[in-house]
């Protein structure tokens, strides 16, 4: 089976709210190990874009409200393996962080996995046949919405109809890993209409 690893991260807010990615994360993000990157936005500067490009050239990036580059798209959908994935920063979905409103977007984009950010809080919900993921803030940047944010990012291992979502969190200087499993019921089909 071909290994398909998808890195999902965002809300780094470099240099407005954080000086750099945590060193322990940087040492984990070795070039060549990851096949795709999904970025929820708010890098905010070109430096960070260039760094991520080295980690993996296939980068899908969405516009956050503080991003220096204004030409990133607001919404994007892509297919990786058997999964349709939708990405949006999340400041456009009100109320912020509300699961039902995010679920609405997931329905609208007709995707299996919806990745959003903005709240800086890691969440992963299995919700009526799909998954809604927020990889949190990779630098643990200040957020008006969440207090005491730990730096975090997500790695998705896509294997056929199954995806394992690993979340890496930096807690008190140590990297802790957790995971959730998700299996979808049907393969990707093209629209019947």
């Amino acid at each position, binding site marked *: 089976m071909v290994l398909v690893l998808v890195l999902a991260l965002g809300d780094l807010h470099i*240099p407005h709210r954080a000086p750099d990615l945590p060193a322990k994360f940087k040492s984990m993000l070795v070039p060549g190990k990851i096949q795709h990157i999904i970025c929820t936005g708010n890098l905010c500067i070109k430096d960070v874009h260039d760094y991520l490009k080295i980690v993996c050239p296939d980068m899908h990036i969405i516009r956050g409200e503080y991003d220096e580059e204004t030409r990133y798209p607001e919404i994007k959908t892509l297919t990786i393996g058997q999964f349709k994935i939708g990405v949006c920063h999340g400041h456009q979905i009100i109320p912020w962080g509300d699961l039902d409103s995010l679920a609405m977007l997931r329905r609208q984009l007709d995707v299996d996995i919806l990745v959003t950010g903005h709240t800086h809080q890691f969440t992963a919900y299995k919700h009526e046949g799909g998954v809604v993921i927020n990889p949190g803030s990779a630098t643990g940047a200040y957020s008006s919405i969440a207090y005491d944010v730990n730096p975090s990012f997500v790695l998705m291992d896509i294997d056929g109809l199954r995806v394992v979502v690993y979340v890496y969190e930096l807690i008190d200087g140590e990297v802790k890993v957790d995971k959730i499993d998700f299996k979808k019921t049907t393969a990707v089909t093209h629209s019947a*209409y």
Partner: protein
Amino acid sequence: MISDGVEDEDKWLAAGIAGLQQNAFYMHRALDSNNLKDALKYSAQMLSELRTSRLSPHKYYELYMRAFDELRKLEIFFKEETRRGCAIIDLYELVQHAGNILPRLYLLCTVGSVYIKSKEAPAKDVLKDLVEMCRGIQHPVRGLFLRSYLSQVSRDKLPDIGSEYEGDADTVVDAVEFVLQNFTEMNKLWVRMQHQGPAREKEKREKERSELRDLVGKNLHVLSQIEGVDLDMYRNTVLPRVLEQVVNCKDDLAQYYLMDCIIQVFPDEYHLQTLEELLSACPQLQPSVDIKTVLSRLMERLSNYAASSAEVLPEFLQVEAFSKLNNAIGKVIEAQVDMPAFGAVTLYSSLLTFTLHVHPDRLDYVDRILGACVKKLSGKGKLEDSKATKQIVALLSAPLEKYNNIETALKLSNYPRVMEHLDDGTNKVMASVIIQSIMKNKTCIFTADKVEALFELIKGLIKDLDENLHDELDEEDFKEEQNSVARLIQMLYNDNPEEMLKIICTVRKHILIGGPRRLPFTVPPLIFSSLKLVRRLQGQDKDTAAEEASATPKKIFLLLNQTIEALATVPVPELALRLYLQCAEAANDCDLEPVAYEFFTQAYILYEEEIADSKAQVTAIHLIIGTLQRMHVFGVENRDTLTHKATGYSAKLLKKPDQCRAVYACSHLFWVDDQDSIKDGERVLLCLKRALRIANAAQQMANATRGSSGSVMLFVEILNKYIYFFEKGNSQITVAAIQGLIELITTEMQSDNVTSDPAADAFLASTLRYIEFQKQKGGAVSEKYEPIKV
């Protein structure tokens, strides 16, 4: 004519080699038939080729090497002759009958070698004889090669300690004496070359001299290899004699080379112990000698020696190495008035490296060196010389790398004074180096004083140093520069809130004079740093906070308001709006209603007056609605005012779809899940109906302008919102309403003149699936959804 040059030289060399080879052939024949007389005859003829004056040193060397090889065979023959009964002393006398002096002396040295080996006479006697006899050749090139030959054949026969040639009469003292004498004579010959020939060929002569220098230097190498030359002998005999020759020859080429040779060839511990003597020679050298390079190399060697092992460090202290070197450098700089800035800085740079290795704890030494540098540079204003500025950057970077802690550098009082002498460009380079150093070492705790000192050092990045001169800095480079300052601001932290506030005020003071180009980069990190402080203060017990404490959220918000105002000078209204909203949320968390209201007011003013771009407006309105939705601090009136405005803005966006989406987003302003007081079902419905009207209008417009209605996507979105509030328990949203909307959409989709939109179709489908899904869930949810027919 010498100008015929290389071609002729090659001819002469070829001729010389041919002659040499021919005579060698006959010599071999004589050797094979044990014919001593003929052997001597032909070897002398062969050696006569070396009498030539026509070859440059480079070519002469080729001839010499061939002769050397042949002489080895001859030496073997001589040895066999002595075994066959010929007395060595007779042989020694016999070779002196050779006609010309040069061949005579080469043969004599060769026999001398056999003589010493035979031990029939003390080595020292033979060596003395030979070294004196060689005086017969005063021609520089021929003499140097001859003496080099002597050195080569005698090398393994010196009466060193523990050698077989050591005896009662022969000691290492004699060995040393021999080598020193050879060295002295060779140096004299070498120097003499400088003055031969016409003035116009000076360059050519110097090049030729350069080719020969290793012949002279070899003697020093031999001295260093003699076992018996211990520290005492080095200090009392070798060094004084060598230095004497170096100083007295008054030749800058020789002086530079030999000083360097001494430093490289003898052990570092000897140098340490004879530092005084070595350094005192320096001012006595010719002014044109590049003494700074010599001293730099000495200091480099000593630095490496210090770095090699901690055990040698006490030695440095014992000989007071630092003060000796410091004084020596001072004297050299004083003596060479015309020394360019680059030279002086290089010297101080080497001394600094030395100090950092040997006395890392003596910050006063480091500061002293920087002070001496400042003194040398004073009166020169900003340096133009790029070599000098590069050296200064190296000088200033060294303490940063060594100590890995900006605090130490900040303690060096002369550090900023040195930076004053850099031109603006290099000043900025240095400032970047300082920032990089801080970024690498992340454990620094700052105080307001340290921050003040730091920002003084990096002022080149913080503001325009010269009012009139505007940097033609590349846009990319400028951004990188300012982003590094932004990152730096993130590093300035102190646990104590009072001190932290002082730090923030210090930073603020500096960045506010940065000008409109810099503010968009430097203000945001300061704002967020302040908001983090506010949050820390929130956590503190309100009772324990002292009355006089200046670090209160209220005071910080005041500061924040004034700081964001500064962005108006740029102007960057979109950024300012975002920052005002961030502050509003923070004020909300502190229960400061008037403060929060004021921030919203500022944000709204910016929206109305400054943000004209339609795309920017859409993002801005979403941020406003999203933030407002989370506010719990507002009383009814304030909330109403702000909500009313927000919905008004939403309805006035340029594009109808944007209007529609913003308006239905506003519906959430009337329904907040965690607060029962904000659950106004009626107004939610009003919003959604308004959204529907806009969606309708959009359809009609599309019809009128394009002939067919646009997609039903907006209707499906609004349907989903209906369902959202229905599920939340908004009694104003009835099953009938939902049903009706579904029918409306389905009818529209089937209508002929509606543009087919697969995305909208899929969305409707997944919405209906959702309703089904909820029906299957069981319990209260099922009951709710049951009536809806899909």
